[in-house]
């Protein structure tokens, strides 16, 4: 078996400042990896470099493509990378308004991604949209409503439906539960866990919420100052943190 994603020596600088540096890891099919760290630790920079939204200065991001096997996505042609972003990859933004088209109906938001990969049959697209609204627990009577009229939690679920409808193999998530009520967070977590299991997805989840990461990810990387200071099994990193920063992070969580 080959890793789905293999990252080697990835680095990104903003002038003299380090965005992220020396990041290496392998992600295997079906694995969910969490990335935690305080604001400014480089988590989002790393995620954006992995997903092709930012151009790293050094390193390799090798993805196991369906047709050509492992390919370095950084040296891929732009059309090929864009195709990957529409098919095998998905990106769930922290703010659903960054990942949705607010003036297109909910059904249209889901259908658009299918049309981007060649679906043309209206009935089939609408049926897929209806199915996915159900899976993310949005009443299908809302299919023609615009997401502008949805609550934050509904928008986030719609964004997830839009991303997963094309059957991606790798999902990047940037604080998927950030800014939501805890009750809505729980619902979203349950939904994500179910979808990951059902579809055999691999995912990389950036968050600052250690409880989210414990429930969602089996592996964890801890970042500080743009570097990975500790990584391993999630429960091992959280129960027996080795690095000073991880110890501080874990001991700073309030108990409820």
């Amino acid at each position, binding site marked *: 078996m080959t890793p789905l994603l293999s990252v080697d020596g990835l680095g990104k600088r903003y002038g003299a400042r380090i965005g992220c540096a020396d990041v290496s890891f392998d992600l*295997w099919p079906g694995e969910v990896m969490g990335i935690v760290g305080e604001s400014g630790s480089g988590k989002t920079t790393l995620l954006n470099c992995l997903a092709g939204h930012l151009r790293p200065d050094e390193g390799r991001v090798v993805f196991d493509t369906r047709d050509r096997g492992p390919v370095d996505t950084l040296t891929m042609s732009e059309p090929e990378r864009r195709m990957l972003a529409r098919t095998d990859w998905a990106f769930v933004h922290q703010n659903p308004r960054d990942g949705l088209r607010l003036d297109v109906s909910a059904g249209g938001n889901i259908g658009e991604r299918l049309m981007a990969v060649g679906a043309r049959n209206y009935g089939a697209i609408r049926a897929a949209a209806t199915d996915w609204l159900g899976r993310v627990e949005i009443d299908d009577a809302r299919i023609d409503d615009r997401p502008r009229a949805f609550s934050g939690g509904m928008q986030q679920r719609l964004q997830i439906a839009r991303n997963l409808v094309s059957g991606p193999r790798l999902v990047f998530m940037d604080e998927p539960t950030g800014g939501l009520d805890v009750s809505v967070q729980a619902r979203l977590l349950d939904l994500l866990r179910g979808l990951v299991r059902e579809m055999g997805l691999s995912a990389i989840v950036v968050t600052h919420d250690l409880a989210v990461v414990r429930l969602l990810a089996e592996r964890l990387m801890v970042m500080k100052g743009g570097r990975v200071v500790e990584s391993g*099994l999630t429960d*091992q990193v959280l129960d027996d943190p080795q690095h000073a920063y991880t110890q501080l992070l874990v001991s700073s969580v309030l108990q409820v």
Partner: protein
Amino acid sequence: MIELRDVSKRFVLHNQGSAVIEVMSGAALSVAAGECVALTGASGAGKSTLMRLIYGNYRAHGGAIRVGGVDVATAGPREILALRRATLGHVSQFLRVVPRVPTIDIVAEPCLLNGMDADAARDRAGRLLARLRVPAALWSLSPTTFSGGEQQRVNIARGFAHDFPALLLDEPTASLDPVNRETVLEMIEEAKARGAAIVGIFHDAGARARVADREIDVSRFAAGAAA
């Protein structure tokens, strides 16, 4: 099945003056298939620490911890995840679950992960929950609001759902009434009979005497104790 050799563990508290706490050295333990070994020792002696070292959520600093051919002390995350999925079960004292997931699905999960089909897994989960007297009306609810004893029984059902060849049991009978305690002890005896290697912590001396074949006092592994 479970074999520990010369295992040592220390904690370095970087944010408390880099205090180094040596908690264990020279720990050795061997558990054969079908055998149950009880860890004993006063509170703080390191029973749970040893258990966590075997499960892999504590990292050993030396020695070997072999469970079914995998050395947990040196294995990578992927190997440990595979070990926990198929070989090494764990009944902890705490139930940690995603909110909103129905009890029956939580119990069925280990079967699903090991390739059982969904109906058979739910069927097996239902039989375990019924045996442990968790009322059927609760099966479709999340256990987060259950009483302590009910949560513990859900945890036990989950730990016994798949026939793990190695099992870690942390106080499996602690908050149970006598009837359910009896059921759990029977389940442990059945697991031994099918060949499971079990390491347990039992504060309940009666339970310990009944299911454990041997006792190991972990205070002799305390760092600094005469080796």
